[in-house]
């Protein structure tokens, strides 16, 4: 570690200055060797359609990335990997959960691989970090998960369309349902970040309008909740009519299990945004999740032909039950295929592709799929589900269809608490 170099005490020689410039070049010179040269092309009308996939394949969201990818590939195979008369080619990149890595990968896909469009994006932080890039470069991004409200509202751009949901969507109808069917005094528990805040304001708006009262809000540390015990004690202390929570992944398992461990599960009804008890975490939660009710745009047991077919095919392919993220991946692929068919494979004009998106309608595993042109987000049914034992396995059983829900496209149906 010691510096063995001798350095002239006098000023700076030209040679040294040159060295700096040289190093600058040297450090980056390796990059271009790895690709063939050629002009930057936005989109083409012939050859295979290249679709860039930006998803996390490592770190905590890896399951979401894997599920979305598996279902996308499944749908593309169903249509013979062809749409609009052109072959479909996927180029996958791992975004991890780092906005700066995602930025780098987005540039790689768009500029080096010259993809015709990009799909994917799991976390809202990554989506908002990429928003300006896709907007400025007029590149189409089909978002298959991240639910950040602003992307349907004040940060909307013509070039980002979402096939998944806005964070507002599953929570708003559930608030009304909870006030009418469960109780009037709610305690809310969410992780302390943007999606948690979106959850609170959407739930509170309809819950309070239906005569409910939010008696307490608990914002737990993000990204790591750590030991959940203190939060359980606080909930027991508040003794509300119901608890409304939003967690996903590891935190969802930790929270739901602790809720049962501390004997709260039988005493205070637990409601949530559907992701908290989705099929990806349900096996780990086990019986602790029994009786948890949640709102979501899909459920494994949803009774329609497409869903049955989808479930069977997905299970055969991956050995696991599908989850809502897989459904979103499946629909993302379908949207892309339908769009390519409508523009007859011509991806050279991004405006033409965007133009046909609002006309796309089909039967999805979640029921009828269609975009709301204003929020550039699906207008979709939200189902109230309950975790029950079905044939020896735990699944979400649909209790009620709460109707078709469309993001308002602004913050008029949110309530700060």
């Amino acid at each position, binding site marked *: 570690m010691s510096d063995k170099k001798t350095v002239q005490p006098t000023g700076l020689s030209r040679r040294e200055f040159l060295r700096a410039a040289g190093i600058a070049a040297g450090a980056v010179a390796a990059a271009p060797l790895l690709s063939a040269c050629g002009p930057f092309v936005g989109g083409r009308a012939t050859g295979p359609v290249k679709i860039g996939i930006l998803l996390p394949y*490592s770190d905590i969201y890896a399951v979401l990335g894997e599920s979305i990818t598996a279902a996308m590939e499944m749908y593309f195979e169903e249509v013979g990997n062809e749409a609009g008369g052109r072959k479909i080619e996927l180029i996958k990149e791992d975004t991890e959960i780092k906005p700066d890595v995602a930025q780098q990968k987005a540039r790689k896909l768009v500029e080096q691989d010259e993809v015709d469009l990009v799909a994917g994006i799991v976390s809202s932080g990554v989506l908002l970090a990429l928003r300006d890039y896709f907007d400025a470069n007029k590149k189409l991004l089909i978002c298959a998960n991240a639910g950040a409200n602003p992307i349907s509202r004040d940060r909307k751009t013509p070039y980002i369309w979402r096939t998944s949901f806005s964070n507002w969507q599953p929570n708003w109808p559930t608030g009304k349902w909870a006030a009418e069917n469960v109780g009037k005094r709610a305690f809310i528990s969410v992780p302390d970040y943007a999606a948690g805040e979106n959850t609170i304001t959407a739930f509170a708006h309809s819950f309070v309008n239906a005569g409910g009262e939010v008696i307490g809000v608990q914002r737990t540390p993000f990204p790591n909740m750590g030991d959940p015990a*203190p939060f359980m004690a606080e909930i027991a202390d508040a003794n509300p009519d119901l608890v409304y929570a939003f967690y996903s992944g590891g935190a969802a398992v930790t929270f739901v299990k602790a809720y049962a*461990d501390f004997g709260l599960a039988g005493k205070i009804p637990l409601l949530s945004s559907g992701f908290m008890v989705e099929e990806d*975490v349900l096996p780990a939660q086990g019986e602790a999740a029994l009786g948890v009710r949640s709102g979501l745009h899909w459920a494994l047991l949803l009774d329609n032909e497409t869903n049955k077919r989808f479930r069977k095919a997905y299970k055969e392919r991956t050995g696991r039950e599908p989850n809502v993220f897989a459904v979103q991946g499946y629909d993302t692929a379908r949207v892309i295929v339908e769009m390519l068919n409508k523009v007859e494979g011509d991806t050279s004009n991004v405006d033409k592709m965007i133009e046909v998106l609002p006309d796309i309608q089909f039967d999805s595993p979640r029921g009828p799929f269609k975009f709301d042109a204003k929020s550039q987000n699906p207008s979709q049914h939200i189902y109230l589900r309950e975790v029950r034992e079905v044939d020896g396995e735990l699944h979400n059983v649909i209790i009620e269809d709460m109707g078709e829900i469309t993001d308002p496209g602004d913050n008029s149906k949110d309530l700060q608490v």
Partner: protein
Amino acid sequence: METFIIQLLNGLVFSMLLFTMAAGLSLIFGQMDVINLAHGSFYLLGGYIGLTMVRRLNNFWLALVVAPLLVGALGLVLEYFFLRRLYGRHRHLDQVLFTFGLALIAADLIRWYWGAYVESVPPPDLLSGQVPVFAVQFPIYRLSLIGVGVALALFLWLLIERTRIGAIIRAGVADAEMVSALGIDVHKVFAGVFALGVALAALAGVLGSPVLNLYPGLDFEILILTLVVVVVGGLGTLKGAFFGSLLIGMADTFGKAFLPEFTLFLIFAVMAVVLLLRPSGLFGLEGA
């Protein structure tokens, strides 16, 4: 008042869980002066081995024995082939790079073998269920962690302070040359300490899995938490790790109870304040 006592209990449980996590790091860090950024990885590996044991054999108790043994053996191999070349203060940065590389590989291979889904381990039947504490149904498994933490602390204290092996370890840290002059193989001592340290991490992984579950990313979560605990307590002393765990465990619990929005902030603020008042931690040796 009742809530306060329950939170105190929660704090105690979490402190002892922290102690089981931090004991191994404290040992390696304090006794061998080796920075081990793969500590959380050994924790996670132990937890996942435990998961497999519980799934296949439905025996939590066996997992508590086998996981530390396997991971400890892995520790011996790593020490023998790699770490042995990296001892010494001037090799700290190499230790950082080596153990970080190890952590990356471990995270990747664990995800590859066990998958990225969140997994949970049920507590053993003997310790499942709850006992009423005031209005709260307190999980028995959590309560038992207090006993486990105290027992582990006692065991390690006896081992290091009251046995011949402990005396050799202590002497080896103070003056390795002296110990080798006495005809004792210092290499073996260090290898043993490292194996014990990572075995303890694996033990904590099994113990913690019914409470914190297992998922990718938990390794680094545990690493940062245990680093804070060990440094707050002060390097080189078991006492430090124990009281560091208590302080951080309590700060975390009461922070979550009364200032939930500032919990993340709080733990690090506590650490910063402790180090400002006592630059070598609560019980660290001056100049260490």
